């Protein structure tokens, strides 16, 4: 077992633990924190099913962003869609047998790596070219884009320039998952870069703006039903008042 294998095995255990524990902790906080008042941005659905549809539109086609800015929407949607397909495609390194739909994605993956990077570069260009977006960008916003671009670019490089031993890689990850470690394919610096960056992304996820991914589902302006007259809502401090007592 090489030192590199041990190092990356430990890195991915740690990154996975931080990602899972960190994001779970945040989700628990979001779920447990009360929302004392009804604040959906109206017009809002008046039924639970309507809210499910609204949220589905929000997370699949980015409805609000589409209303806001077509360029940001285009770059953002292309990036997220391509990332989503790539994530599913990468399931083949973690599943045996590979889930039935994963091979069907092969045709898409011709484009998705490039699409991801193109979308990211589009978004990044706005941080330089649009004065308003430049103003609101912190160093971390640039770094996050750099990280994602580098992940995409190293992935593309492994596919088209320096082919990676994906059979060996799969054995490594299945070994990690089964607690029976297998060697990481050696002599592949691009792979090491790719893996390091992905682990970094997993580690910063729970302490960064990437929390928008779980956050959007808990956003009261999007997930509340517009029925305050029909159904009395109380939670947190708004549940503390006992009005019948103060009726003289």
């Amino acid at each position, binding site marked *: 077992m090489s030192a590199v294998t041990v190092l990356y095995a430990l890195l991915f255990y740690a990154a996975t633990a931080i990602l899972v524990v960190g994001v779970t902790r945040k989700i628990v906080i979001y779920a447990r924190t009360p929302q004392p008042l009804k604040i959906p941005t109206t017009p809002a659905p008046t039924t639970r099913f309507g809210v499910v549809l609204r949220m589905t539109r929000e997370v699949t086609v980015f409805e609000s962003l589409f209303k806001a800015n077509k360029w*940001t929407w285009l770059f953002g949607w292309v990036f997220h869609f391509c990332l989503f397909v790539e994530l599913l495609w990468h399931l083949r390194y973690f599943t045996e047998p590979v889930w039935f739909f994963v091979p069907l994605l092969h045709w898409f993956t011709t484009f998705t790596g490039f699409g991801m990077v193109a979308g990211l570069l589009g978004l990044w260009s706005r941080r330089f070219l649009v004065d308003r977006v430049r103003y609101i960008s912190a160093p971390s916003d640039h770094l996050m884009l750099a990280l994602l671009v580098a992940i995409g670019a190293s992935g593309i490089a492994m596919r088209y320039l320096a082919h990676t031993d994906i059979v060996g890689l799969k054995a490594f990850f299945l070994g990690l998952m089964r607690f029976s470690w297998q060697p990481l394919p050696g002599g592949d610096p691009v792979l090491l870069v790719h893996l390091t960056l992905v682990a970094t992304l997993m580690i910063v996820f729970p302490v960064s703006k990437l929390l928008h991914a779980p956050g959007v589902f808990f956003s009261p302006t999007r997930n509340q039903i517009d029925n305050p*007259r029909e159904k009395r809502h109380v939670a947190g401090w708004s549940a503390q008042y006992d009005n019948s007592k103060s009726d003289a």
Partner: protein
Amino acid sequence: MANFETPALREYPIIPLLRADTMAHSKTFAAKPEFQTPLGFPGELVENWEQKAVDKLGELVSQSRALQVFLDSCVKCGACTDKCHYYLGTDDPKNMPVARQDLLRSVYRRYYTFAGKVVPWLVGARDMTKDVLDEWYTYFHQCSQCRRCSVFCPYGIDTAEISMAAREIMDSVGMGQRYSNEIIGKLHKIGNNLGLPAPALANTLEGLEEDVKDETGVDVKFPLDVKGADILLITPSADFFAEPHIDGLIGYAKVFHAAGVSWTISSYASEAANFSMFIGSHDNLHKVAMRIRKAAKDLGVKRIVVGECGHAWRVAYSFWNTLIGPFDFLDPRYPIPQHICEFTYDLIQKGALTFDKSANDDKVVTFHDSCNVARASRMGDMPGGQFVIPREVIKAVCNNFVDMSPETTQEATFCCGGGGGLLTDDLLELRVKGAMPRMQALKQVVEENGVTHMAAICAICKAQFTKVVPYYKYQMDMIQSVHGLVSKAIRLTPADK
């Protein structure tokens, strides 16, 4: 007139380039101790205020899922940056919604997030300093809490929630705003924002009865404190004295008269407005609203109808059931509460009202969607009823109606520029500049469609527009109450009881 320039209205709306600090000088008058203490706030900046402000921030976030999600989730995509009327009217980058949120988010990150504690420079985290507090005071009093940004945010982040929290924190360390806090104090003491005592209110209503009698020959009543009336009318106190608000009140009375219902105003709860929402104070919000529950129970009414007021309708529609419910003592066959436009619209649908639309033929009317009605409430049964119903009421009483550009109406409506506790003369520059996007849209329909009047269903909108349209070379009497239009066209017969 004043030492600032009114923004130019252009052929087409543009997104301005940033001009830093153009509104950094804007400071609304601070509340003196006499206006702070009745609301439960310290009179002046407390000792150790930095720590107390940070603690209060943590407490508020722990009590609000909205704040938890909003402070974590922003990715700085820029979708909101060109959506705020104050940014469009002032070019000040700190009036971009995300930049305004970041004034508070930067402090939250510093004290409550891992990244902000460890690498503050990387994530734009800042210590709570006097400069930061002063910046909060300046720029959180340049947000009218209109929620336009929240429509366009991919995560629904609502800057209104953040500015309410910021104002609550400032109040809690003794740095309140005079305008809002003085008014809330008057309400606690007397029952309305004006500080209008019961005898004066009775006098005003009697005068209105005489005016309407002279004008129509019909005995339209303006009842006060009538026990056993069916309907309690809760309306903004501006309706009792201001123009064009009072025409709206006359309109409600005529509609009630034509409908033959018994109704009353309460001298104890003679105010629909609840400015406590603007300052994010839960206890004051509850306390102010409780006057209405008490009045409704004391008078033994069966229904509550709310007059034309934007934020009041938000509080009534969205918060009353939560804050002062359950309403098991009211008649469940009617919406609780019901908006006056819903009430009038129902009667129109039933054919119960007679109008002479030609009475409004001197006007071509457009309608300004008020932000809190548009984006924080509803009317009727279906989503978007808050856009349909007021327009249908106007169309039933006016032959000439024209909508403004769709990017400036309905859910995308622009704030009048005076909402959220900013309707004060010490913020006049902000108000005039913030009205620019609405004035731009108005100018278009004036020039292309010959619009002569703009109607609204919000006391703040009406007061704000009446004050600022002259800066844009329009006449103040072009602003109308929707029920002022109803009042003009409605035909009453003495036989109507």
